[in-house]
């Protein structure tokens, strides 16, 4: 992104034996993750672009807000919906963007470096395959949700500011706008949801995509989808059941606990905030074990695979 020096003094100019022998694993991981963000600018550009689109739409809608507020003046429920809906919609669209960016990122992460042969450069540096694969898992599981969170909060803050100014300018009260709870509370919920669902609950999804990305010689997108489809079809024809498809569906649109995550993908402000229920849900732990197995496979494949 920028070329500033990172102020690391060069190693001593003495003989090789005197040079520092190691760099802490955490620092290697930091640079590996930073490298991912350098390469994949869509991690922040895509959510920013979507945020800009949301803001344009919102500005147009806000021009008409005072008139609508007056029309619905007598019905507080309607007023509340009118005000709250754009915020929920914005958060939902941002999450969908995150998911799409994460899927495409993961599919290319270990495939692209083999296709352009840059893997030979990465492997010429003292960074292990484990560190590399973990950095490519941390990016969609941790970095992407955090970036999305920051951009969503920024977008919603601008939306709040704009609608407050418009309402005040038209001599209307801000009560309705601010009555459905403090924005900080819903932002906390948002952060929790992003880390829990988009991070931990989707971890096996990203693990699978990284595994395919490390394995495929071409068309990683097809290889990611066709085997899953094949399993579902075989199960359907052989046993006339659809457990596998149901399980995939539950993973994609259900939550760690359906009661706990009612509505899942759309982040409802009234959703139960119950970390305990989440942490004891077996679905979460099974998913994490599966994700770890996929990542172990990806590490092994990266070691063996040649450039394409």
């Amino acid at each position, binding site marked *: 992104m*920028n*070329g*500033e*020096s*990172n102020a*690391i003094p*060069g*190693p001593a*100019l003495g*003989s*090789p034996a005197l*040079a*520092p*022998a*190691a*760099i802490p694993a955490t*620092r*290697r991981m*930091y*640079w*590996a993750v*930073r*490298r991912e963000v*350098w*390469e994949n600018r869509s991690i922040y550009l895509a959510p920013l672009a979507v945020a800009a689109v949301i803001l344009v739409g919102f500005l147009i809608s806000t021009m008409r807000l005072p008139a609508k507020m007056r029309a619905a003046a007598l019905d507080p429920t309607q007023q509340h919906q009118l005000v709250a809906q754009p915020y929920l919609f914005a958060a939902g669209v941002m999450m969908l963007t995150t998911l799409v960016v994460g899927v495409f990122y993961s599919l290319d992460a270990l495939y692209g*470096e083999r296709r*352009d*042969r*840059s*893997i*030979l*450069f990465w*492997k*010429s*540096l*003292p*960074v*292990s*395959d484990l*560190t590399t694969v973990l950095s490519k898992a941390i990016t969609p599981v941790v970095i992407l949700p955090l970036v999305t969170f920051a951009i969503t909060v920024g977008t919603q803050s601008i939306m709040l500011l704009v609608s407050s100014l418009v309402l005040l300018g038209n001599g209307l009260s801000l009560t309705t706008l601010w009555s459905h709870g403090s924005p900080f509370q819903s932002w906390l919920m948002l952060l929790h949801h992003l880390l829990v669902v988009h991070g931990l609950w989707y971890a096996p999804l990203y693990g699978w995509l990284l595994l395919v990305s490390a394995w495929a010689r071409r068309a990683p997108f097809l290889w990611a989808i066709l085997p899953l489809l094949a399993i579902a079809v075989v199960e359907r024809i052989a046993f006339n059941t659809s457990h596998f498809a149901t399980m995939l569906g539950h993973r994609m649109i259900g939550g760690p606990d359906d009661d706990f995550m009612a509505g899942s993908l759309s982040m409802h402000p009234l959703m139960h905030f119950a970390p305990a229920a989440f942490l004891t849900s077996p679905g979460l732990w099974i998913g994490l074990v599966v994700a770890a197995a996929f990542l172990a496979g990806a590490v092994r494949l990266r*070691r*063996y695979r*040649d450039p394409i």
Partner: protein
Amino acid sequence: MACIEARGLRKAFGPTIALDGVDLRVEEGHIVGLIGPNGAGKTTALNAILGLTPYEGELRVLGRDPWTARDELMRDVCFISDVAVLPRWMKVAQTLDYVAGVHPRFDRAKAEGFLAKTSIKRTSRVRELSKGMVTQLHLALVMAIDARLLVLDEPTLGLDILYRKQFFDSLLNDYFDRARTIVVTTHQVEELQHVLTDLVFIDRGRVVFDCSMEQVESRYLEVIVKPEQVASARTLKPLHERQLLGRSILLFDGVDRGSLAALGEMRTPSIADLFVAVIGGQAGPAQGAAR
């Protein structure tokens, strides 16, 4: 201590045998040229040495097993495996930041110094640089790493003469200090004639020739034989005979200089001629070193 020690190194890709029992010992402080025709197994051998491919047999690089300890080995080993492996999306400044971030032996100031001598801008992306500049950048990164072994696989492939010359000049003047070891493969063997300390020919997965340059100079002699002497010259069992502009050029291995002097003009053979004599004689056309 030997820098690289390989015994009975084998590697097969399905039915194709890439390495067929390679024995190789490279001492520290040497510059070794690994020369062979296309498909001889050079790159596979280097990949095994760099921990990029599994193998059978014994292999120790700086005392480590490269396959199981690649990331540790890479603290002491650098390689440029092709001219075009720097990631094209990366900015020049990012390559410096990243290598400084992950490599304990990278001297950033030194790399900046090398780059200052080129016209490469920090804000450029690798994809915007010419092929020659990408090589300069890669070389600047690698020469700023205080490594014990540098492996170069066709480092100057596709570069023009100016860049090629500059590449080996800066390598020798600014990098090589007799404590480091360099292993290089190339098809442009003439350019390496005065750079190498050791010469290894590899053909069909085997080491067919392994000799120091000093030995090459003392053992091998090429004689431009006068036409009337050709028959008697042949009785001295030349390694190889070729015709050039109507004259016979015979290459001898370990034949006394005194007995050759009478046959015609003597000279030390070039690496390319030696290569043709050693490999061309047994393996048909050796396009690798053909002029």
